[in-house]
């Protein structure tokens, strides 16, 4: 700017009152457009029309670099240990007034609080970024038809939002509620050449030029991503939801040959009932839970006494369930199809003291 002036009076006051009403233009006039304003004067002198006078001015619309990276949805992505292709979803919007490329970097936070409150405790592996295919496949969700990106989004149209999927593999052997924070950062790059990532963009500094200047207009993103740096970012996270199983075993005497079922004692010939209770204190259901229990040599398994899927009340086995399971000496075994998070299930069987 070579000079400036202030203009007060009625015009200035009117301006003050209307500044707040400046409309929001997402992208607007294409960068480099020349705006020419021409005014004309028609008049008469002594009743005779005179030649029309005109005056023009023009200026060039500069380039406003503005972009937005947003996590889609406001919940963590639940994963299980060892899961491959765990997906977090982001949206990238080009609010600049020019078609641009956008370099993408998916990184992980180390420690600290993740996007949805947990503390980052592990890192996921094998990060990939996909662009949603909006023509075929499941639109809005990651599927095989989406495009694997090689570090940048090519030629993103003005005022256009696209969906990006950050896909990673989760390590095995993680505890329930373990969290991995993920950051996706997009940086504007020069557009104009399809199939090639454009060069870095720098803001026009120093003296302004009459031609097309570049102005960064992006807002601040995650910690470390300041406003007006030509890039924007957002966080998301993975939270491990796994089953945590605890096993408890209890027993009771059912009968003996002399007292029968009245106050039976553990003498040879007595029948003992065992209960193996499996409680799931994790955040996800455990499926295909196989229980295996070798019968001690001093006992003889009573055929047809296995009960599966029984209940536990206040930590005490109810010694119930439905018939099932199998016995292959010396092992009693049975499979419980599913134990929901927070629930428990049992395997019950009887044996006789030798």
């Amino acid at each position, binding site marked *: 700017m070579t000079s400036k002036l202030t203009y007060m009076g009625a015009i200035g006051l009117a301006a003050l009152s209307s500044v707040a009403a400046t409309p929001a233009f997402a992208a607007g006039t294409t960068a480099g457009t020349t705006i020419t304003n021409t005014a004309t004067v028609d008049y008469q*002198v002594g009743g005779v029309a005179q030649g029309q006078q005109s005056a023009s*001015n023009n200026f060039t619309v500069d380039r406003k670099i503005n972009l937005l990276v947003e996590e889609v949805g406001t919940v963590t992505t639940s994963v299980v240990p060892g899961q491959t292709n765990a997906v977090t979803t982001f949206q990238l919007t080009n609010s600049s007034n020019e078609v641009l490329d956008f370099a993408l970097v998916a990184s992980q936070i180390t420690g600290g609080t993740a996007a949805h409150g947990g503390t980052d405790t592990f890192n996921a592996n094998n990060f990939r970024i996909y662009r949603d295919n909006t023509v075929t496949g499941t639109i809005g969700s990651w599927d095989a038809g989406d495009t694997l990106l090689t570090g940048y989004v090519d030629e993103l149209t003005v005022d256009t939002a696209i969906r990006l999927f950050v896909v990673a593999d989760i390590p095995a052997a993680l505890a329930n509620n373990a969290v991995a924070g993920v950051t996706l950062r997009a940086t504007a790059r020069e557009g104009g050449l399809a199939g090639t990532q454009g060069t870095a963009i720098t803001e026009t500094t120093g003296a302004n030029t009459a031609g097309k200047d570049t102005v960064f207009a992006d807002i601040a993103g995650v910690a470390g991503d300041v406003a007006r740096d030509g890039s924007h970012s957002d966080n998301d996270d993975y939270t491990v939801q796994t089953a945590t199983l605890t096993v408890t075993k209890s027993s009771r005497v059912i009968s003996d040959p002399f007292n029968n079922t009245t106050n039976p004692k553990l003498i040879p010939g007595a029948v003992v009932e065992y209960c193996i209770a499996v409680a799931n204190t994790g955040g996800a259901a455990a499926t295909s839970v196989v229980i295996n229990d070798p019968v001690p040599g001093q006992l003889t398994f009573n055929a047809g006494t296995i009960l599966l899927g029984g209940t536990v009340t206040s930590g005490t086995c109810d010694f119930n369930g439905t018939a099932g399971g199998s016995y292959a000496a010396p092992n009693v075994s049975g499979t419980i199809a599913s134990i929901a998070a927070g629930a428990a299930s049992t395997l019950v069987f009887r044996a006789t003291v030798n």
Partner: protein
Amino acid sequence: MRTALFLLLAMLAPGQAFAANQVALDNAVFVERVSTDAQGKQRIILEEPKVVVPGDRLVFVLNYRNAGAQPADKFVITNPLPAAVRFADAGDTRPMVSVDGGKQWGLLADLSVPMTDGTHRAAQPADVTHVRWAFQKPIPVGGSGKLIFRGVVK
């Protein structure tokens, strides 16, 4: 104030000197920015249109002067809006405007825009396609003045 502004404008646009004609017209554009000083007081600053991005407010300033030897009568200044500029207001200069490409003219409050269903709605500043000032009285010899209107870069 007006003289000072006039001189400044002349300096800002040296290439647009007034033509040696009966009537001289000068057309300038500025970007209007709000700056807040240390006391939190807001000031409107008009800058040259060097850095202009969509959403910026523009002030168009038209200076006219009767440089001839006789009064200029039926004096009409017409300014079509550039396609990439949305009309905002014209301060207190009360121009006639057109919202249909220059066919019909009137005060903005008196105009309407036809809808596709045959009804009409009141014209909005964004509908304006042309601005026009028609002077009732002749401009005397040496008489001059300034007209402004505001727009926003689309």
